[in-house]
């Protein structure tokens, strides 16, 4: 207060300060006789305690403004890229941003993104009570109002179905073989997804309770009445094997079918040509595999995919491999053989191979050495003194 008062006085005097020095003398007389006490304040007091405020709260106007800016920006971007602003999709936006702002960062989440504000700003609940402080929702004082209201609705639906069942029984049309909801190929929402849906935190037990109630709903014969409500809480699962890239079968001048595939493991790269010639010869880097891999374990790795599919003596393998050690080279070759085999094998077999782990690239690599330690995990010898 005093400081601002002084500042205010000083600013007025500055205007008159050009009049002369005489006024300076009179400054002390004309100045307000306020007790001027110097309060020494450090800048740390002016800083806000950020942790106590909690997560950032965005007002609805703020979000709306962001949405407008996003739309305008999208149109600008479309113009920049020379495309039609009306039919500019999110994929196009991503592509353009990646083109205009190329980034070498490894983490995809650290690269520049331009998405709709709804996807960027976390969903927040609006104010739950009116001007007088009365909550809108009747379950507000449970603390998790959306969760309990969901349970409440679910139970309502269960009761409705039971009433429907009773009606059918009265009419004499009660049957158990009604249309059932198709649940294969989909899974329940995960706990994180459920939290996102309800915009509030729920515990593990709450989640289990919800799923149990859903299952109870599904166990009743006439549950197809609430099909679309239930399907809102299911996610569709893709069939993983459709994602596999199967190498193309090519044909030799002699008419022998062969396929080429690559594999990698831990910095060893392998490339394989699998020929359908009817003998079981294996040549690696020009040498017989018995000489290249004297260790039995490596040869067993080569054996595994062929043995799994059951075509041991049928294929000829010609491979080249480089890098890393013998075990990693064997692993790389194994992956390459499995990939090459995909083209000779039916879809059911492909799925079986995927489940056996033959088609998954081993993601393990050498862990980085950290400073202050001798290796990745090993610490220096601890000396007491």
């Amino acid at each position, binding site marked *: 207060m005093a400081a601002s008062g002084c500042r205010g006085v000083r600013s007025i005097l500055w205007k008159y300060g050009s009049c002369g020095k005489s006024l300076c003398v009179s400054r002390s007389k004309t100045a307000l006789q306020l007790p001027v006490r110097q309060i020494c304040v450090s800048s740390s007091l002016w800083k806000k305690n950020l942790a106590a405020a909690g997560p950032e709260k965005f007002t609805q106007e703020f979000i709306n403004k962001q949405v407008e800016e996003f739309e305008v920006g999208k149109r600008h971007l479309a113009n920049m890229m020379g495309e039609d602003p009306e039919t500019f999709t999110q994929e196009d936006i991503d592509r353009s941003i990646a083109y205009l702002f190329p980034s070498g960062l490894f983490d995809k989440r650290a690269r520049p993104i331009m998405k709709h504000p709804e996807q960027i700003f976390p969903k927040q609940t609006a104010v739950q009570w009116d001007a007088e402080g009365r909550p809108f929702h009747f379950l507000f004082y449970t603390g998790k109002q959306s969760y309990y209201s969901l349970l409440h609705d679910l139970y309502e639906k269960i009761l409705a179905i039971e009433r429907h069942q009773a009606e059918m029984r009265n009419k004499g049309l009660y049957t158990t073989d009604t249309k059932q909801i198709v649940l294969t190929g989909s899974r329940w929402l995960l706990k994180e997804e459920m939290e996102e849906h309800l915009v509030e935190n729920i515990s593990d037990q709450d989640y289990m309770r919800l799923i149990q109630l859903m299952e109870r709903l599904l166990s009743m014969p006439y549950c197809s009445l609430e099909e679309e409500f239930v399907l809102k809480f299911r996610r569709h699962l893709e069939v993983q094997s459709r994602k596999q890239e199967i190498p193309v079968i090519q044909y030799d001048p002699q008419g022998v079918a062969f396929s080429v595939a690559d594999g990698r493991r831990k910095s060893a790269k392998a490339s394989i040509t699998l020929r359908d010639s009817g003998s*079981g010869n*294996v040549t690696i880097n020009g*040498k*017989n*595999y*018995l*000489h290249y891999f004297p260790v*039995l374990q490596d*040869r*067993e790795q*080569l*054996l595994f995919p*062929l*043995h799994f599919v*059951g075509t*041991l*003596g049928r294929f000829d393998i010609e491979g080249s491999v480089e890098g890393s050690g013998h075990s990693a080279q064997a692993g790389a070759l194994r992956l390459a053989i499995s990939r090459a085999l995909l083209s000779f094998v039916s879809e059911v077999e492909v799925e079986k191979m995927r489940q056996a782990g033959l088609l998954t690239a081993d993601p393990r690599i050498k862990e980085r050495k950290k400073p202050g330690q001798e290796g990745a995990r090993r610490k220096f010898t601890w000396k007491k003194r």
Partner: protein
Amino acid sequence: MNLHKLASRLRPTVTQKFRHFHIQGSGQQLEAVVGETSSAEPSLLSVFRTSEQDPACHSERHTGQYYTIPPAHIQKLFPHGLPPRFQLQVKTFNEGCVMVRPPALELISYLKRVDYSKPPLRYILYGDTGSGKTLSLCHALHYCYTQGWLILHIPDAHLWVKNCKELLPSSSRPSRFDQPIQASQWLKNFKITNERFLSKVQLDRYVWTKRESTEEGRPLGELVDQGVNRMKSSSDVVGAVLRELRLQAGGATDGEGAFKLAVAVDGVNALWGKTTLKKEDKTMCEPEELTLIHNLRKMMKNDWSGGAILTALSQTGSLFKPRSAYLPNELLGEEGFDNMEPFVPVSVPNYSEKEFESCYLYYLDRNWLQHPHSRSEEGKKELIFLSNKNPSILERLCAFL
């Protein structure tokens, strides 16, 4: 029914516990035989065994089949000659069965047809590690033994160029070195193998020390005993024995004095390679400076007649040679190749389909393959893949199945 009884009669060594499996097993094999060839001899009870025990009568018909060496022959002929793993197998299975394979048959056929008044032919068996060179050599030696030859078998020449504890300067020549332990060991084994030739007459007079000498006309046995008892001069005795045999081999063409000499050296590339032995002043020893090696090299020259020189290369015990080397010129080196030329190379490959089949059946028959999966077709294919039909790898693989 009869066939079952025949099977049980001819396999008295099988214990009661396994008999049931055995008879069933042989029943299956019988069906296989009946299905396969109708021209098989009635005495052939199984596909992989032959009853022809005499190596002289082995022919292409018996390729891939196992024949048994009588235990007496094993004790006499191979006191030190068989590879160690094979010795273990003989002990486990209670019988010494060797497979008849084309390289051995080739060698035996050459031995049958050669004219023994000419200088001896040198045969070199070469091939991949573990493909059966030593056993083929042993098979050929068994043939020589049954024909009554004098066997001079050095089981592994590599043992003479490495790991020698005592290296004495030679008593007779100043720049040479003796290996008394190895020499006396070898002389003992030589005595066991060739007992009936020990009463041969010898020609020259040898002086060992100021007080000891062997006079003219003494039997060979005394010379050998001299070497066994007096360790100091054993290497020189070895040299003397070799020289005597060389001179006498082609000497008398008929009568009691006639004998044919079979010189069999396994790991012949050791003679011209390097040694790991050091002299007292810490410099490396050359193979030339070792008495035993020097005498053996003289043996390898074909300036005598009335015998044959059978050799086999070996990478496993060799010194300073890469693991992938298996051809004669790689393993022998320039010097060795020049010395051994001209020679008859005999290649020893891995098992063929038929041979693999027969080895597999043999192990099954001996109940060596305990794992139930190994009896199936799938298991057999796995074995083929994992061993690539290499005999030693297959043997090691089956050892823990």
